[in-house]
Each structure stands twice: as structure tokens, then as C-alpha cells.
């Protein structure tokens, strides 16, 4: 899905912002050259305080060749429609909610959108179960507060408040992890476009150009569902999982390779076949239909995201390297697959066994996988 920064891009960005020396430069720095080139050729109308026109923002994300020959690398590989709806939403006064299971590049898309629209992707609130109201509204500098009493100087604005004042794009990550009462502070901000400060009898009004991008995981357990009042203020875009098995195998094997290196796992050759199988199983169960499209299946309660496939394969690699014969085999991944599929011991187990008996058993060349799974499922 995402096109991670390749080596050459990294070098280029490093050359451009030598002063940064950051481990991971922000999107607006890493791709400053592309953004500048886009701004130069972009002659379409821009909404107030936008750095680029909506068309140019979409081009920045989807990639393309500009009229002056500059090549814009694709940041998001997926349906064009999704990016177009997302960009268009930011141009209206509705906020944008990016939904998707883990590993579908929600954060990545949100960062690049903010970078292209406002030239700044750092106005960010990271949502957690402990995110307080201050992180979304404002806090106080208590030394100032005690010394001089309540005043604008004693106020510590949140990223959202700053974005409102400057007409920029604010970002909220993992919105559904934030407690419901804190989430709801966004309602006034998004509908009235104002942030009252009762302590000062004042308010901060959003200026034109302000908007908000939130990301959320839509199939996670234990999240705080958005209230309907809040949901109504968002246009929702669901980022899909990789469209084809090949895309997904590609993503999994690349990430597994990176992870394996950082975990110092011995490299295991010929793992592709097993990766292919894991991805196939995940996709089939997730989509509720076999890869050949002939048999329908029940879907288990787990998300079976690409991210989980990656961890299953990585776990299998560690098993193969440390306890096996160094070759990734069906028996190394079977337990991991079982653990990902069977989240609900009653219902999911039936689904898994049905799948094993009706699909896996009949499949050519899957005998070892079938046996390994039977063994761990018993």
C-alpha cells in the first residue's frame, strides 16, 4: 500500500535538509522538492491558506509526471477514488476520518495530506486511552497562572487550537482510543469552528483553512465508539486492504525482511512459499471467499490484517531459525495462524475447522500445511 521511502529518496531528502539530521524527517521535509515543484506548476484555484490546489494534493499522493518533467513519486498505492474523496473533504468544512485495519497506511496518508495542504504535518494529537482534554483544547502554564493569573500568556494551546488560529490542518491519531468524553470536545470545534475559553471569557475561532484529519481502527476490540454527534461531523473514508494477493505478499515479505534484520534473525531462504500460504489463508478468511472465488467462507472475528500476517511470518521465522532446521515450514507458521484466526474460542474454532476441512484439505500441495494445522488445532 504505502510506498516507503526508498534509499534514493532518503538520500535526496537528506541532501535537502541537512540541518534536520532527524532519524525520520517529516513528510514536508522529505518531499520538499516535490511539493515545491507542484506549487510551481499548479495554476488551479487553491482554497484559502492551502499550499496547493486539491488537484495538486491528489497528484502529490498518487504520483504523476508534471508538465515541467518533474516526477512525483506515488505516496499511496490504492484506489484513486479514495484520495480524491479525502482531499475534497478537506476542501469542504467537514473533517476527514480515515478508517481501516492496522497496516493500511492511515497515518501515512494523513501525514502526507497535512504536509501537502498546510505544509506542516506536526500539529498532531496522538490518541491513547489516557489522552486528556487538555491535549485537544488547551492547558495552562501553572507558573504563569499562579504568578500573573489567567491570561492568554498562561495558556498552553493544543495542536488543534494552534491549527484553528493559523488555518492549518490538525491531525488526531487513533481517535477511537481516546475516551468518549474527551472525544466529544471535538464536537464544538468541528461544528461551531470555535474553541471557547471560559476561564478568560474568550474564544479562539478557527480561521479559514482549518480542518482536521482523524485516523481510527475500525475492527479493533475495546475501542471507544464515536458518538453519533461526532460521527456526523466527519466524512469517512475507509482505506482498504491490499487489493491483490501479490501486493500483499510483496508487502509482507518486504516488512518481514526488514524486521528480521532489525531483530537479527538469521536469514531464512525459500520462505516465499510459506508467506504466500499465510497471506492466502488470511485473505480468504478475511474476505469470506476462496481465492478462486468459488467457495464462500465464514469470516472469523479477528481482523486478520496484513500487520498480523507479518507478525505470524516473523514468529515463524524465529521458530525456524532457532528451533527448526533453518527453513520456514508449515509447522512453524501453523500455531501463529491459529492464534490469529481463533480469537473467540467457540465460534472461531468452528470457522477455522470448517475452513481446514472444506478448503485446505482438498488443496493440492497443501498437505503439510493441513497436517500441521490439524496438529496444533487438536
Amino acid at each position: 500500500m504505502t510506498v516507503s521511502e526508498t534509499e534514493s529518496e532518503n538520500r535526496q531528502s537528506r541532501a535537502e535538509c541537512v540541518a534536520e539530521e532527524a532519524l525520520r524527517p517529516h513528510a514536508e521535509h522529505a518531499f520538499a522538492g516535490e511539493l515545491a515543484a507542484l506549487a510551481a506548476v499548479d495554476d488551479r484555484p487553491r482554497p484559502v491558506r492551502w499550499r496547493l490546489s486539491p488537484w495538486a494534493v491528489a497528484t502529490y499522493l498518487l504520483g504523476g509526471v508534471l508538465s515541467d518533467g518533474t516526477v512525483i513519486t506515488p505516496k499511496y498505492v490504492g484506489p484513486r477514488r479514495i484520495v480524491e474523496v479525502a482531499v475534497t473533504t478537506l476542501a469542504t468544512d467537514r473533517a476527514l476520518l480515515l478508517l481501516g485495519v492496522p497496516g493500511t497506511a492511515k497515518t501515512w496518508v494523513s501525514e502526507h495530506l497535512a504536509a501537502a495542504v498546510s505544509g506542516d504535518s506536526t500539529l498532531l494529537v496522538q490518541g491513547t486511552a489516557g489522552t486528556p482534554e487538555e491535549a485537544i483544547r488547551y492547558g495552562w502554564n501553572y507558573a504563569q497562572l499562579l504568578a500573573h493569573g489567567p491570561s492568554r500568556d498562561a495558556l498552553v494551546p493544543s495542536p488543534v487550537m494552534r491549527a484553528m488560529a493559523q488555518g492549518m490542518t490538525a491531525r488526531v491519531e487513533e481517535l477511537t482510543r481516546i475516551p468518549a468524553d474527551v472525544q466529544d470536545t471535538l464536537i464544538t470545534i468541528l461544528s461551531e469552528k470555535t474553541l471557547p475559553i471560559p476561564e478568560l471569557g474568550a474564544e479562539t475561532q478557527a480561521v479559514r483553512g482549518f480542518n482536521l484529519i482523524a485516523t481510527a481502527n475500525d475492527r479493533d476490540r475495546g475501542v471507544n465508539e464515536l458518538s453519533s454527534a461526532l460521527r456526523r461531523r466527519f466524512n469517512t473514508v475507509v482505506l482498504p486492504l491490499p487489493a491483490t494477493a501479490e501486493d500483499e505478499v510483496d508487502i509482507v515479505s518486504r516488512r518481514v525482511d526488514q524486521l528480521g534484520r532489525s531483530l537479527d534473525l538469521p536469514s531464512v531462504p525459500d520462505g516465499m512459499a510459506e508467506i504466500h500460504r499465510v497471506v492466502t489463508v488470511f485473505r480468504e478468511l478475511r474476505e469470506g471467499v476462496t481465492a478462486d472465488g468459488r467457495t464462500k467462507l465464514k469470516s472469523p472475528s479477528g481482523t486478520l490484517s496484513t500487520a498480523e500476517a507479518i507478525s505470524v511470518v516473523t514468529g515463524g521465522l524465529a521458530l525456524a531459525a532457532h528451533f527448526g532446521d533453518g527453513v520456514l515450514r508449515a509447522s512453524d507458521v501453523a500455531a501463529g495462524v491459529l492464534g490469529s484466526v481463533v480469537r473467540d474460542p467457540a465460534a472461531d474454532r468452528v470457522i477455522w475447522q470448517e475452513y481446514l476441512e472444506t478448503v485446505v484439505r482438498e488443496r493440492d500441495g497443501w498437505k503439510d500445511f493441513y497436517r500441521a494445522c490439524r496438529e496444533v488445532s487438536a
Partner: protein
Amino acid sequence: MTGPLLLGVRHHGPGSARAVRAALEAARPRAVLVEGPPEGDALLGLAADEAMRPPVALLAHVVDDPARSAFWPMAEFSPEWVALRWGLEHGAQVRFIDLPASHSLAVESAEEEGGPRVDPLGSLAEAAGYDDPERWWEDVVEHRDAAADPRAPFAALGEAMAVLREAYGDGGHAVDLVREAYMRTQMRSAVREFGDQVAVVCGAWHVPALAGKFTAAADRALLKGLPKVKTELTWVPWTHRRLARRSGYGAGIDSPGWYGHLFSAPDRPVERWMTKVAGLLRAEDRQVSSAHVIEAVRLAGTLAAMRGRPLPGLAETTDAVRAVMCEGSDVPLGLIRERLVVGEALGEVPDAAPAVPLQRDLVRTQRGLRLKPEALERELELDLRKETDAGRSRLLHRLRLLGIGWGEPAQSRSTGTFRESWRLRWEPELSVRVAEAGVWGTTVSGAATAKAESDAAGATALGAITSLAELCLLAELPDALPVVMRALADRAALDTDVAHLAQALPALARTLRYGDVRGTTTAGLAEVAAGLAERICVGLPPACAGLDGDGAAEMRTHLDAVHAAMGLLPDPDRLRERWCGVLGRLASRDTVPGLIRGRAVRLLLDDGRIAGEDAARHMGLALSPGTPPADAAAWIEGFVGGGGMLLVHDERLLGLVDGWLTSVAPDAFTDVLPLLRRTFAAYEAGVRRTLGELVRRGPGVRTGPGDAGVPGFGAGLDAARADAVLPLVALLLGRHGSRDLCRSDSFA
């Protein structure tokens, strides 16, 4: 005006339709010529009828072969329909000018293998930088507001098509040249009659061929010696869904509902569309406020602007609806697509329309089978081994599938599988039903097949599809069977209730057997049945855990039915093996109710899968003092329910029951008494008496098999008297020659 007014359109294009109306209003021709079969001229008057409501289709079929047919569907927003109605309302002469159906149907049978049609609009769209020709057409023609001169767009389009025709010629379809020659001939005669006051409405592709210079002699030469068949035409009601099909005009459309909306909305089409969508979602209990509608309209507009389109099209509105009203989900979008984008409009045709071919086919079949429709109710006994009777049965089953309830199956007096009883009665309104069923096809068999396929796609309950599969076999619709089987396999895969699967399996096994008897190919069926059995094997043990009394009783009937069905399936050995494994697990799992456990042990014992000692061990465990008495009694009911001979024959088991019963505590005894009564009351009187005798005698009294004899009989065996019964037993078992077999029929 110079020459006839040529209005090139896209079939079913709402913008074209509107443009045609404007052009006709401006030119006010005295004759309107429309692309369509000229035989339809006689039926044109019906188009003005009050009772005629589009979508309808002009249907042409070969008289002796109704299966060979062609449709010219017309929706309210079809330019052809608009032209027809305009002509009829304004007193202009309306004529169809395409090649007569009697020729085209004769030719078509040979033509159909022709390669893919060159897509003229696709080429134009590509030249304009569009990847989707539909969208290009929408932007350039359909979404264009009425120009100052309503004829201008047609002129521009005609020029573009002329360039295309130069490049592609006949587009790989030689028959088009013949059709165009005929159209020119008709056009010439109309011009002779009405001068230049003639308008022609036809597919844009044909415009250059009608405008170009061709001599009448060359056209006559092209039209000479065309094959000809006898055809009949009529109007039939049509549906939006079927507009998507390719037939007649050859142009299927994906979104008739959207087009209909574009055509009928007086202004602000997007706003009105979003309001419709919101109304639909509200009716489905989704919260959609006016604010949602406003935002969706704005988003669609902004999207269109970003994509450089003059107006939001279906793609933009759909994207906006998804993001604003559906929270990014595609599930409600499916509903919107079904109900609005495609739409459920059903056309109506006046009663005066000629009979549909289905009616003719029915009459012919009835005559062939010597089965007259009579208003008086009568019984019909069919012997399916006879050719005619089998045909009658098929016809009646097919009609039932089509909702034409001429015959109702009655309880047959004979129990043989080759006999069927029907109660026949032809009600006058059945003719109406036949006319309605005309949308499904032109022959009874074709229509029934189409109906079965559609029913299978629409059915939600598993049981409904299994009975549909049974019906397909009875009605002998082999073409529908694969579709029904697909639907069945899909439903079975997604159904989480094992009880549903267990209900479906016996019917399926029956169907399979029936298919074997009739020699129908049932390969797909067997595969589905095996899959179903596999799913039951996986799902049954968890489903049996923690059931209450009623649930357990229900599950027991399923258990019995599945057990019987398993034996009827192909490859019984492997399945049986698996099934016995499942029974074994059920028998030994504590969370499973006693009733089911007892039943499972019994089924295993009857099948010889476990020995008597194992059964005794199971019973001993189930009846051990720790088990709640009610549960133990339920176990007994499951184990010996439905016949007590087992207890009579196996004294060890009887001893276990006896021992348990005497050790039940007095207060618990009143609880288990009703259960035991229910179990033992079902036994025959003789069995009960024998059991009583055995219990009174006490265990271990019996000395040896020869002496004590069978329970219920006196001691000692009179071999001579016993032998007397042997010949009759042999007769019953069919051990004699075939001569005796015939006589044994009367016992069966």
C-alpha cells in the same frame, strides 16, 4: 429544413431523450421514424394507451420457435420511447424503420458468433482522454443543458460519428450495412410522402450511413434474397433490472434507476437524488439528517469540480454518499445500488397487447401432452414411467415454479416413487399469470429456468434453496441446477446455525437419490452435499453443548435425520468414518445433554461401531451416582427411545437401568418419573410386559439361550412349528424367482 432530421442517440440515454424531445418540439416533423422492427407499427397504437407504463419491451419471436426472440426494451427515458410518444401525441406518423424482425431473426442465428462490436463511443471517449465511455457521453451529451439550437448537438455528434465510420467501416458487423440499407429505403419512401418534414431517431452509429449518398438501386441489391422466417410481435412488461441485459438494441445499461432519475427530475438532479438516497436509508433505520444530505451534495459537487466534470455523475454522488451517509461502508451502498441505481420499476402493458410467446408455447405443450385447461377441478394420476405422464409432471412442476398454480400436488394414493397425484384446476386469472411470467422467457422451460435462477439468488433461507433444488429436479431444469447449487453452497457456507444445515441435508440427500433414479446428472449436487455434511461434522459438537431440554429434543431429531442422510451420500465410507467420530465425541462429552449423548451411543451401537460392552460402559458412566437423576433419565430416553427391544435382548443394559432406578433417591424419583414414563410409554404393550417380567424375575436367572428362549416366549423351542414360517419369510425376502417377486409387490 434540408433533408430529413437525423437524431443520433445513445439507446437509453436520458440526455439524448431530452435532446430528442427538444429537437422534435423545434422541428415539429410530420413523420417520426424510429429504429425498431417495422412489424411493430401495428402495435404502435398501444404505446399511447393509458395502461402502458414503461419499462416495456417490444418482443419479436419466431412463430414456431419462441425460444428464438429479440427484445427492444424501452424505458421512460429512452429516446426511442420519447420519440414514439411525441409522435403519437402530436398526430405525426410514427414508423419503425429497422430491418424487419422476420429477416433479422432469420439472420441472427448465423450472426451471433460475430466478434466483439467496435465500441464507437469508447473510441471517441479515448480521444477525449476519458477512460470510461459512459462518463464521457454523460459529460458531453447527457449533462449538457439544452443548447440554443436543440439540433446543434446532433449535428456535432453526426460529424464525429462520420469520422469514426470512416475509420472503422461497419465495425465488424456486416449485418449493420443491411439494416442501414433498409433504413435508407424506408427513409426515402417517407420523404416521398412527407417531404422534408421527417425526423429519424436511431443509434448515433447509424447516422453517417443514413446521411451519406447511397443509390436506391444499391440498397435494393443489398436487401435482395434475405432469409425470412414467420414472426410475431408484442409488447411485454420489462424491468429496470433487465434493462441491463444486452438484447435487441444491443445496449445494456448499468444504472437505469439513475438515468430514470436524471430524466424525470425537473431540476437540481443531484440534490433530488441525495434526498431520495436519504429517504431510503432512513426507511432502513439509518440515521441520516438533512445536514448529511447538504454535506453529501457539497462533497459531490466539489469532487466533480476536482475531477473536471461539468456536473456530479453517478461516480461522484456514490463516493459522496459513501463518505458522508454510509460512514465509509459499502454495505448500505449495495442497498442503494439495488433499490435506486438499478431500481425496481416494473412496466405494465395493456390487456389488448397480443399474447406473449410463453402463452403460445404453453398451449402447444398442453396440446402435445393432451392436457386441456379446464375450469372444473379434477384429479390426475401420473405414472412417471410413461413418457407422456413424465412430460405432464414436468410441465406442472415448471408452471408451479413460475407461480402459475394450475396443478397442486395431492397426496398420492400409491406410495411408489414413480407415481404422482395432482389436483388440476384452470382459473381464468391464470392467463394473467402466464402473461406476467412472460418476462422470464419465451418458453415454459426457459422461463422456469430463469425464474429458478432468480429465486435462488434472492432466497435467504437455506431450506428454501434446498426445496428449490428439489423442484428443479422434478421440473427437469438442468440449466438452472448449477446456479441453484452455487447459491446453496454459498448459503450453507455462511449459515452459522447447524440446525439449518441439518435440516437441509436430508432434503439434499433425497434429491440426490431422486436424481440417481431419474438419471439426472447430479455431480455438482453431490459435491455440495458432501460439503454440507463436512460442515455439520465440524459444527455439531459445539452446537450441542449447553442445550436446554427443548433444544436437546430438537437437536435429537436433527441427529437422527443427519444420521440417516449420511448413509445416502456418495463416498459413504469416508463420511461415515467422520460422522462416527463426531458421534463418539458427542457420546463422551459432558457438556452435551444426556438425551444427545444417549442417542449418539445408540446410533453407534446400531451401526456396529462400538461393541455392547462399550455401550454398557457409556451407560454405566451416564447412570453413575454422581450424575443428576434428570440427566440420567434423559440419557436413557435418548438411548432406548423409540423401541425397547434392545433392553429386552441385552440383560446387562437392563440390569444397569434397573440398578440405577432402584438407587434414585425418593425426592429425585418424582422428578425423573415423567421422563421415564415418556420413554417407556412409547413402547409396545408386549415389549413393556416382557420388560416387566424380566425385571420381576431379577438378573442372572436366565440359564442358557436354548432353554430359556427368547423373552416373551415359553421355555423350550418347538423346531417343527418354527420351521413352518420359513417359506413365507423367504418369500418376503425375495429369495424366489422373479415370478414370485411380482406377487410380493402387493406386500410392499
